[in-house]
């Protein structure tokens, strides 16, 4: 059998390397598209061979790397990572198609970076060793940094540095936590290991509650800043807004924060010194992020910034669902990651189209675009509706699972989050009304509707949003299996 | 018999005096002299330990270090002379050609 997990990293990486050496735009985009298609093929192969009835690791590979430190190159796929890999593999080809016709400098580097990013993110998802995990984790910074720094908007330099330094500092704190875990476990067992599952299992045997709290908090800090969640989100609006459309979508696909939460933090959570306190903390941050993101989005004048804050609001569901610690709430949180990736891709692509065709993103300067861009309007409407949680689209399933089942443990926070639902609808509809409906703003000149490649790429993602909204089972079942394993751990400890 | 610690104390004192000189003087020649003082306090230590452990290695090292000190002093003074000839200065902090 193929070593799928490794190939999923290697294929995009190799294609990325070759793409860097192409000369023309079409060559670069074509090659990158080919690479992403190959990745998609591999992913589908993995998905079809995936057994969603078990929470065990599948497609497992392990090679000894640094024996003296117990670091191995070990990778594998399970129900937590499979949907996220799937998400990445699905969206990237359409992202490349979407941006094919755009004019820009150095297309070879642009598409090369997209593929590098894909490799890095998938690397994080399949890594089962903290060394490998951290290396890929940091690798994701590089393409994003250049994406923003080279092809971004006006304040791109500031935004890129802010993003880079902020999340890098958070990652370093996480690294500190990882080392703490590593050394503490080494002391405990006498055998050094960087194996994620082994270390997470060791966590409960470690020294004092204070130490466990410190390790837990420093590791989760890295995840929370990457997710991001209130109050560690201030890199997000700048970076999302200044990034080129493809960059924004790559940011959206950067689901490593939430992934780390499920893979590492949640299994550790019940064993911390004060699990109740930690749950309250996470629940509060999640619920407050939901409310906060939507209220701040309400006041944004820039379409892309509004979507960025809405993204923050959505990420709150991931945290709230995780803190809920009920099987279905955790799977809801996982599904929210998946659904958010699809929905926000549509929204950022739409905002990108609006900016490139009208030259502005300020909502009040737009108006009546529905008349000139009917196809965009339909797709954008699907995106907006999915994002505000309309049933039948993916957003609803995730939000319902999170809210309904987190309520079992965290009723107060869920009620807080529910307040945000109306507000979310408010800013989306407001934006829709101002930008798309009403009388056409003649100052915008002659705008053209989206080209057929864009219709195709956005349309397919919109159809997926609809499909997974009607039938979430293809990804939800494996999430439920995995989250059952996580939650049973917590239940065993009576949390 | 004089305890070892007396030698060490003397060496420490000598070193500190040299140190003080290095820290307070600007004149290059004086500084080199002070450095010599510090070097010799180290030599004193070498010889003292050599005697008190009944081995000769330390004393051999002291001889080497004296020889090296001579070389260093020769080169150091030569550099100072060259600088003096070029700039008419001997105060080290006034020389800025190698500073940022």
């Amino acid at each position, binding site marked *: 059998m193929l070593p799928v997990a490794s190939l999923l990293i290697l294929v995009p990486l190799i294609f990325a390397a070759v793409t860097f050496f192409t000369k023309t735009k079409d060559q670069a985009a074509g090659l990158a598209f080919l690479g992403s298609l190959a990745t998609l093929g591999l992913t589908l192969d993995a998905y079809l061979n995936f057994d969603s009835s078990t929470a065990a690791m599948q497609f497992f590979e392990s090679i000894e790397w640094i024996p003296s430190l117990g670091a191995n190159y070990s990778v594998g796929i399970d129900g937590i990572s499979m949907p996220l890999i799937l998400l990445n593999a699905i969206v990237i080809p359409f992202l490349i198609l979407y941006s094919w016709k755009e004019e820009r400098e150095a297309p070879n580097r642009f598409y090369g970076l997209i593929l590098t990013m894909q490799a890095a993110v998938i690397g994080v998802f399949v890594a089962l060793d903290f060394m490998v995990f951290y290396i890929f984790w940091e690798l994701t910074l590089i393409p994003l940094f250049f994406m923003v720094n080279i092809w971004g908007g006006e304040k791109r330099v500031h935004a890129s540095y802010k993003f880079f330094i902020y999340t890098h500092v958070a990652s370093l704190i996480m690294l500190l936590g990882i080392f703490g875990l590593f050394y503490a476990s080494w002391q405990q067992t006498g055998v050094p290991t960087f194996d994620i599952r082994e270390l997470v299992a060791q966590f409960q045997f470690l020294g004092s509650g204070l130490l466990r709290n410190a390790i837990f908090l420093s590791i989760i800090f890295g995840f929370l800043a990457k997710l991001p969640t209130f109050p560690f989100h201030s890199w997000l609006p700048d970076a999302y807004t200044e990034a080129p459309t493809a960059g924004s979508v790559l940011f959206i696909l950067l689901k490593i924060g939430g992934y780390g939460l499920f893979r590492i933090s949640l299994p550790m959570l019940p064993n911390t010194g004060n699990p109740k306190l930690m749950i309250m903390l996470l629940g509060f941050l999640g619920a407050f992020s939901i409310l906060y993101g939507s209220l701040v989005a309400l006041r944004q004048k820039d379409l892309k910034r509004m979507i960025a804050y809405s993204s923050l609001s959505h990420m709150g569901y991931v945290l709230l669902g995780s803190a809920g610690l009920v099987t279905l709430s955790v799977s809801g949180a996982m599904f929210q990651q998946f659904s958010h990736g699809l929905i926000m891709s549509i929204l950022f692509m739409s905002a990108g189209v609006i900016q490139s065709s009208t030259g502005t993103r300020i909502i009040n300067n737009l108006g009546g675009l529905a008349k000139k861009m009917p196809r965009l309007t339909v797709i954008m409407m699907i995106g907006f509706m999915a994002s505000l949680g309309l049933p039948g689209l993916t957003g609803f399933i995730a939000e319902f699972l999170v809210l*309904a089942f987190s309520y079992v443990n965290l009723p107060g926070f869920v009620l807080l989050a529910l307040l945000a639902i*109306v507000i979310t609808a408010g800013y989306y509809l407001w934006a829709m009304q101002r930008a798309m409906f*009403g009388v056409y703003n003649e100052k915008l000149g002659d705008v053209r509707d989206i080209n057929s490649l864009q219709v195709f790429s956005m349309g397919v993602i919109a159809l997926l949003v609809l499909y997974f909204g009607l039938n979430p089972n293809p990804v939800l079942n494996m999430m439920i299996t995995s989250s059952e394993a996580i939650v049973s751990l917590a239940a065993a400890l009576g949390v | 018999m004089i305890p070892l610690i007396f030698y060490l104390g003397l060496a420490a004192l000598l070193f500190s005096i040299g140190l003080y000189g290095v820290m307070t003087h600007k004149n290059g020649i004086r500084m080199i002299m002070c450095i010599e003082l510090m070097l010799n306090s180290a030599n004193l230590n070498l010889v003292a330990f050599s005697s008190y452990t009944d081995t000769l290695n330390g004393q051999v090292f002291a001889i080497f270090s004296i020889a090296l000190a001579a070389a260093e002093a020769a080169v150091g003074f030569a550099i100072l002379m060259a600088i003096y000839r070029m700039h008419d200065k001997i105060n080290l902090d006034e020389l800025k050609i190698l500073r940022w």
Partner: protein
Amino acid sequence: MVKTAPEELAFIIPLLPALAFVITFFFGRKMPSGGAIVPILAITVSFVISLMITLRLLANPNEVISQSYPWFAVLNIGILIDPLAAVMLSMVSFVSLMIHIYAVSYISGDPGESRYFAETALFTAAMLSLALSDNILQFFVSWELVGLCSYLLIGFWFERPSAAAAAKKAFLTTRVGDVMFLTGIIVLTSDLLKLAGRLSDGTYLLRFDEIFSYIPQLSALQANIFGFEISHLTIITLLFFGGAVGKSGQFPLHVWLPDAMEGPTTVSALIHAATMVTAGVYLVARTFPMFIAAPDSLMVVAYLGGFTALFAGTMGIVMNDLKRVLAYSTISQLGYMMLGLGLGSAIGIEAVSISLFHLINHAFFKALLFLCAGSVIHAVGTQDMRELGGLGKVMPVTAATMTIAALALAGFGIPGTSIETSGFFSKDAIIEAAYLFGEHSNNWVPYLFSIAAALLTSIYIFRLIFMTFTGKPRSNYQGHESPAIMTIPLSILALFALVFGGLTKTGFTAFLEETFANRFVNLDIGSLAVIGQNELLEAAGHEPVFVLWLPMIVAVAGFAIAFMIYYLRIIKLGPLASMKNPIYRLLYKRYYQHEIYTEFFSLGIVYGVIAFLLQILDVIIDSVVEGIGILTVGVSEELRRVQTGVIQTYATGVIAGVSLLIILVKLIMEVL
């Protein structure tokens, strides 16, 4: 020919209109008249199947259709067609069919024709799916989808800023209710999860039978809110009712419905009169066992319903816009339906049947009223009643059908005879029930509300009739009768408005009372009422004769007032109906709801204060982050000066550092 059992066809009912939506959406533009034929055919088939199922159920009420399929996690999708659903399905598909036929002519020539038919087809599919859902989640999903269609259709002429704004307002206001509904579902879900413990395979958590089987336990769960001990069941039902308030335009969330008249009139008829707005009533009826088992919930329903009936009526009498009058009338009638359900605390299951009876009758005559109004607007081009008048001669069919509808709405009929309109049966049944309730519990408030509202109903609807169809035209217009494709649905609906109530009166009530006693759910409403501390009447009371006649008298009185003011014009309103009169102004400004809700609460408090403060907080957080960056750069700028280049300073620093470090290490070693 193979004879298929109707239950095997049940899934087709919502599926065909959904399919029609897809076809019309993608290919409608290339078809004649926007592909209208596709949804019409689809809905016809749906209607026929619904009717077949209803007839079968009528013959044997125990033959409910119940099919469930897993959806995701512990939730399912499914079909439940019991008498309640069957009635609703038939009504929705029938009214939708009529309005689709009518719309072919009404909407023809509009550039968005195919979009219109696609959206109404989707709406019909969602509404049918709502009616036949067998679990609360699917109900909610359809509920939201009809809301979406309502949003899209109100904003059908999206280039008009007022339409776009009205669409947004409708969606947001109902969204408030929806969130309450969702909260109710969430509370219910977590309660069921706790009560059920570990879920076995094959249970569908939110299916109605599953929910109903937990009613006693739910009722026993108590929550403490602000020092009041409240049963969870009460909380859940009140939250559900909150959803119904939003969707069915009950006070205080009714503000969107009059604005929703910005949409095409056919849309108003279909969505905002006959079907979607009744979804809230249907929700309460559907979960009636929960309501009756919850103390106080039904009381809230009754009071709010009665109040809304009266409250909307007061605004209805001053509106000058043809459609707005009808919109307020709809709100008022929905209030009646809610009131009818609320009276269940005294009359038990009969409440569902009288309320649903009114719902069905209302659907016929209100759709008819709207379609007639549409016919007028189509012909004349204005909907301001002050500019109309004398249309009766030009548009006889429209005038005749509209008058029939008005009579039905006002509830004309002679008690004890068969000279009765549909509205008479159902509305008077509710008023009588309110009387019984008053007698039973010595609480006459609902009865007073309902009688007063009946008077107002009669006044505003005949005001409308007289102002539109009698007298002389008050502006220049060229009226003409609408084409046959529009008048035929009008006539059919008029026939139903006139006789449906009389034909089905006895059968209907008996039929609906079977809803909660069959092989799907088998509940003893009486014992549930005991849980909810509701005392049911032993048997139908013997009302005094004047109670039977009073609604009729009131309706005639209303007619007389309208006749004198607007036809004979012997009473001059003059200053009474001017903006100087504070009461008139209050009514005309619709109790300043726009000012309070939109400008004060939404824009002022939420947008202006809360969101503003959070935005400031966001800026602060961002400044902290940026500040740390600036601080770092600043500090390093200062620290750079340490690098003096003076070797003596370096030496001092190095030595001092080494010395201190040694001391530090020594100290640490001592401590450890």
